[in-house]
């Protein structure tokens, strides 16, 4: 019985692939030198700001690196990783990709910053904030799709919630109440979606698309009919203040990134953790996952499939509602037409990239947020790349990550299918 340890057949193709990837990485490393090095001068440095204006964190010195030396080092890291992969093979494709991406982005930053300076911590903290609405949208997707209900109407839910929240907050003069209304509004729209797809078995994608179209219409309608004329009375709520968490916000680097944000950002991080715990460590999560994978099995064990789906979709809607709240109360304190600007769809992409898993979805959103704030910094730094191409970066990076690292994402087995109880 030699079969148990057998691994011969698979290696042939894998070996070829490994050599190819290794060679590509070496080429990339050398290419980085050719790409970034030429127009730099020997003495040039790049300065990365490590402190944030107005932050409570203990000040630390800014990071000043010599351009040429660091470019050589980072390129060599990529070459070395490539060579190592060729010779031995790196087990985790994520680690491989991570190191190479880090080195490449680092080199790119050094190149773009040569002779100038920019705030690295600012970029990182802005990554988290920019990731927030995306992550909330993705989390809404995760929780409802784990119970096998696809919700493509997240964009619309966020839009409606954003408007409801700001109007409520302005009228009641209470941000907290506004947030509550926004969240409840998200839950309400999601409940309609759930009702349509569960009770009337409307195609889930159709219902979502309809919600998006409807939401764009109704919010613009209300906006142009009422909010324009009476912006002061209806559309001027102010925003949540930044909350500095005592002690933690004093930690350099980490403090300004994680512990000096407004309540929406904290809630988002909290939801990631809570959702992870709920999904994998509580009875409700067990039932949710069972309903998403094999609803019939759950049903035969007395789990009320419909109830689980309703609750999850509605909770998801409330999370998306919070995402909507981010846009108004959490950011600018007013509503403007189609202000969500496609973040809901990007959230869906993050959910898929994150493999229908709260932490994965959060990380995918972070990657997107990072790419987004990176491109903004690059625009400000006046790199010789047209801004349109910089602005493409988040989308391109998502595609590359999805293709190269994630590949085939596997949705919950029953995702998108209505359940027939008989």
């Amino acid at each position, binding site marked *: 019985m030699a*079969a148990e340890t*057998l691994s*011969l*057949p*698979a290696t042939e193709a894998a070996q070829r692939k490994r050599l190819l990837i290794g060679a590509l990485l070496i080429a990339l490393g050398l290419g980085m030198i050719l790409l970034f090095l030429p127009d730099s001068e020997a003495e040039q440095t790049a300065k990365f700001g490590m402190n944030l204006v107005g932050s409570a964190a203990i000040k630390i010195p800014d990071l000043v690196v010599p351009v040429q030396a660091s470019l050589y080092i980072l390129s060599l890291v990529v070459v070395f990783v490539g060579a190592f992969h060729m010779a031995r093979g790196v087990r985790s494709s994520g680690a491989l990709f991570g190191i190479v991406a880090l080195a490449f982005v680092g080199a790119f930053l050094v190149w773009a910053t040569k002779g100038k300076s920019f705030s690295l911590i600012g970029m990182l903290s802005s990554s988290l904030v920019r990731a927030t609405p995306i992550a909330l949208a993705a989390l809404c997707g995760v929780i409802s799709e784990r119970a096998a209900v696809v919700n493509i109407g997240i964009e619309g839910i966020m839009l409606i919630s954003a408007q409801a929240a700001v109007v409520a907050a302005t009228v009641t003069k209470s941000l907290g109440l506004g947030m509550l209304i926004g969240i409840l509004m998200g839950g309400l729209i999601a409940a309609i979606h759930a009702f349509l797809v569960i009770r009337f078995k409307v195609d889930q994608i159709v219902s979502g698309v309809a919600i998006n179209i409807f939401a764009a219409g109704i919010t613009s309608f209300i906006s142009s009919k009422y909010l324009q004329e009476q912006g002061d009375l209806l559309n001027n709520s102010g925003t949540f203040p930044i909350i500095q968490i005592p002690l933690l916000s004093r930690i350099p680097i980490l403090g300004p990134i994680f512990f000096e944000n407004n309540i929406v950002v904290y809630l988002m991080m909290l939801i990631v953790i809570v959702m992870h*715990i709920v999904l994998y*460590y*509580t*009875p409700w999560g*067990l*039932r949710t*996952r*069972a309903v998403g*994978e*094999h609803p*019939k*099995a*759950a*049903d*035969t*064990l*007395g*789990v*009320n499939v419909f109830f689980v789906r309703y609750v999850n979709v509605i909770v998801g809607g409330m999370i998306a509602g919070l995402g909507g709240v981010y846009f108004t109360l959490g950011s600018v304190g007013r509503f403007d037409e189609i202000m969500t600007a496609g973040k809901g769809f990007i959230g869906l992409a993050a959910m898929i990239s994150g493999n229908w898993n709260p932490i994965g979805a959060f990380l995918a959103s972070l990657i997107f947020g990072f790419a987004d704030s990176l491109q903004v910094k690059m625009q400000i730094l006046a790199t010789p790349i047209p801004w349109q191409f910089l602005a493409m970066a988040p989308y391109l990076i998502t595609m590359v990550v999805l293709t190269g690292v994630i590949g085939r994402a596997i949705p919950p*087995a029953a995702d998108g299918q209505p359940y027939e109880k*008989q």
Partner: protein
Amino acid sequence: MPPVLELRNITKAFPGVLANDHINLDLNEGEIHCLLGENGAGKTTLMNILYGLYKPDEGEIYVRGKKAEIHDPNDAIALGIGMVHQHFMLVPVMTVTENVMLGVEEKRYGLFLDRAKVAARIRELSQLYGLEVDPNRYIKDLPVGIQQRVEIIKVLYRQADILILDEPTAVLTPQEVEGLFKVLRSLVAKGKSIIFITHKLKEVMALADRITVLRNGRTVGTVTPSEVTPEKLAAMMVGREVNLVVSKQEAHPTEPALEVKDLYVADERGNLAVRGVSFDVRLGEILGIAGVQGNGQTELVYALTGLLPIQAGKVRILGQPIRSTSPRAILERGVAHVPEDRQRHGLILSFPIHDNFVLCTYFWPLFARGLRLQEKAIYENAQKLVEQFDVRTPSIFVPASSLSGGNQQKVIVAREFSRPIRLLIASQPTRGLDVGSIEYIHNRILEKRDQGTAILLVSSELDEIMALSDRIAVMYRGQIVDIVPAAQATKESIGLLMAGIHPDEAMKAAPTRPGEVERVF
């Protein structure tokens, strides 16, 4: 003492079908009551009603003498009724523990899952009833036999004392069946009562205290094993006298049509499922591949038909090698494939029947001129095959999904057999069919063999393998344990091989009954 369970006048109609027609059934404490009937006789419907999955149109249920209202599985569970479903109700991506606790979760701090406690309880149950299983394994990694144990543990965990087992032996080796029977007897001895649903006469005779036979949704009668013979039971079940033997001619094999040498195949998840298999099938013979489901047969067939890539080894079909050959190219060499999962592979359920008849041949000059489909030719072809293969359908334009399982299978058989073929790969060709359809398909397969087609028959129904094959190969964990001439095989010896044991001496000593082997029910 009243029976623990009594069903009175249960009636349930589905659109177009009266699935249960005033059925009565009672179950005494400590009894194994077998519910016997063909597929579609209404057994599963009845049990689903009992378990609260379907709502009956009429009738009452009494549990321990009291009238019970069972609206959903929770009610059934509360009444101590547990069910092991024919299609396992297990979530593949979860562990044994998670599957067992689903719905009745143990909690720690009132909030979090207490996996350890449940796992300990599972171990206890394993010990008590001899159902060995590792609580921390994922279901998807477990063989089906073990999965069934998990199903039984699930029921016992909920402290059910009325157990319903729906066709539980389909996925087991003869030895495992024996083991299961032992477990069931020990359960009964400990005071549980069991309803055992099956269509296999021999199991009924071996296990039952009483037998109730269903046919076309009606109760035919309730008997005890001592009162009846298998022949009589078969007649009750089918509604006519049934010939329990297959008669077949001596095979005249000629040159090899399929040669497999040292084949390795990985399944869809990348695990090696077939590990170094070698055999050949010659024109004019049937090579049966026996084995418990999930031992690599599926992947073997997929590799031979181009649905899965070959990792290593050589396969030659009619003398030509295949390597990364497409399903289309293999098909065009004269290979027909009756797939294991007819709804997933064999048919496009939403397509009308006429399109399903040309699923593999729609591009033939007969059916398509250039790009244009020749609808007339397609309709004519369908009309011809419907008549020739006796497919019961209102028209050739209804979607395949509207046919019964037997007729769906006939559509596949008709399509595959109507082409000029040299090699037939038939996987579970009669699974879930009624006796009439089984008879029909068996005869067709033998007819093909006699016309000189090479046939690779894969079945987990050992009786079917023994009835049809000229030689029998037994697969276990991705390897072929042995290939024996059918004439020398016995159920016991094959059963041992299916469990991976190679009883050389037992094998050779087996008695033979050439030409006549008992059929399966």
